């Protein structure tokens, strides 16, 4: 389980999450968020193609990310979700909060 991130030249912050996206990533996630915030970035891409399992804490963390970006819709892109993972977003009807690619 890990989060890695890079900041690209267009000012978009890319995060990649691997393994299980759950409560254990809580601290790391917050750290990543605060380093992004201190760089003044407000657009994110979250790469979830290597995510095995996701739970409600993960949805909570993404809400936190969305909140810190300013709650303007779709400033966060979520990429590469497996159908199972995407279904979890759909059950919570969070499709309106994130841009899924």
């Amino acid at each position: 389980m890990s989060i890695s991130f890079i900041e690209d030249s267009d000012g978009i912050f890319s995060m990649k999450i691997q393994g299980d996206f759950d409560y254990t990533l809580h601290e790391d996630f917050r750290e990543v968020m605060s380093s992004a915030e201190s760089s003044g970035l407000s657009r994110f891409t979250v790469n979830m193609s290597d995510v095995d399992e996701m739970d409600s804490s993960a949805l909570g963390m993404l809400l936190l990310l969305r909140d810190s970006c300013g709650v303007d819709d779709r400033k966060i892109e979520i990429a590469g979700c497996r159908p199972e993972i995407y279904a979890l977003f759909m059950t919570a009807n969070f499709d309106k909060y994130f841009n899924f690619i």
Partner: protein
Amino acid sequence: MSPYTVLLVDSNKTERLAVATMLEAASYSVIQADDGDRALELFVEDSPDMVITDVLLKGLGGYDLVSEIKRLSISRFIPVLFITALRDSDSLVKCVSCGGDDFMVKPYEYDIFLVKMVGLRRIQAMHEEIIDANNTLKRHDSSLQSELSLAEHVYDYMVGSGGGGSDLVRYFRASASRFSGDIFLSAYTPSGTLNVILCDFSGHGLYAAIGAIPVSDLFYAMTKKGFHIEDIVKEINNKLCAIFPVEMFCAAVLVEVSPACEYISIWNGGMPDVYIRSNERTNMLAQSLNIPLGVSVGDDFNSKPLVVKIEGGERLYLTSDGVLVEKNKDGEKLGEKGFSRLLRTIISDDYFGEVCREVTSMSEGNGHADDVSIVEIFLSPELFPVDVSKANEVSSSVPRHWQIDMKLYKDVFRDVSLAPFVSNVVNSVQSMTGHKENVFTVIAEMVNNAVDHGVLGLDSSLKRDPEGFAQYFMSRDERLLSDDDGWVSVSIGHHAENDQGVLELTVEDSGSGFDVNLKDSDMSENAGYCGRGLPLIKKLCKSLVFNKKGNCATATYRWDVE
């Protein structure tokens, strides 16, 4: 700070003095012993920080001395350094195997001697850090345990027996951790409507326990006051958004069952599909169409439930997503499809029991990844309680003299359910022990008639079949939104008369009324939102009178003072 003390044990006086001088020059404080027995005594009495000893000693030998020293120093790490003339590997190996930490072979250089001591002191310091950290951890764990006990106590009280509210509801639960993240509650409104909630907080354990407090508080209090699940959903959502951090939310499914089991309302925000079973066939009824509670109070939050007409005798199944993540021995999850298949294929006299067994047997005792909750609601009209009045009020009531008049325009009843609103106004002025529920029913019927048929002009004959039923509620929503000056005026008077309280309730609406000369049988078609219609009011009230136009009704309710 007290000086670092070294116990120096050497039976050769000259050598011992030489080493002692060297150590003292290096600022160590030295305790000397020339035989093993004395050394042991001094070790116990003076608690030195380090021991330096020869192997060959008078009295107790070096190896035995060190074994004993190590046996005695359990809580603290005291480094032991052997100084010896022996060079054979067996003797040197024994220096460490008996418990010593290092050795120096004579002749030695003082620089090396001192530096070995530094190395040992470093390890000693590290050891002490670990013990400190461990003790802090133990203290924290202990206070965490007592906090968890407190939270558990509060949780149990707030949530209570959960499903204890009704015979129609069965609840199965298998917890993943100490607290269930799932909360299940059920209770009746004064008019006999059954409200049920099953919710699942994001995160585990303590989050759920804390979340249980506002959720159960609001659910029970509002149900007791006769509110619909739509209102309850709105209030819980407001509360959770206000008090909890952004990342904490609560997936929930609420079901409202009308007293005669004529219809049910379902609100599903983030929970798995709700299933309905009738005539041995199970079908999906209500998917999650809403965002969970505690996420947003904006326009993206919708509190309107799905309303479904039912026949009576069906069974509803609610689950939390712990059911869907149950894994079989091959590590495959049950999932929505798997659970749906399970529901459709099980045949048993004890259907609910069998479903629960199948789900839990999957993990075969390996524990559950998440809390598993399964609720069955049996929509049986026969099992509904006839009289929901509870002996809550201890004191008997005194009928007082009062009059309250209010006029409420459409924008009020667009957002607020009028029946509990009016009922609460009445209850705050006048308690009527044993009659609160009947009065609520009368108020509800009259006010809802006024809104639905009077102001909104809806035709209740639509509610006779399932499609018409859905259409009825859709029309209702549409018409509520339109921008006209519809109003409902409620006038309530009360006074005492011969050991009775007399309540007079007049409800007038801005609609065009109806034909008051209709026969009684036609009037019974004029069923209000609660479904039992004007005949019920007539049964409960001393009198029910309409004006000529049909848009104003006055009901008189008499009650005996106990």
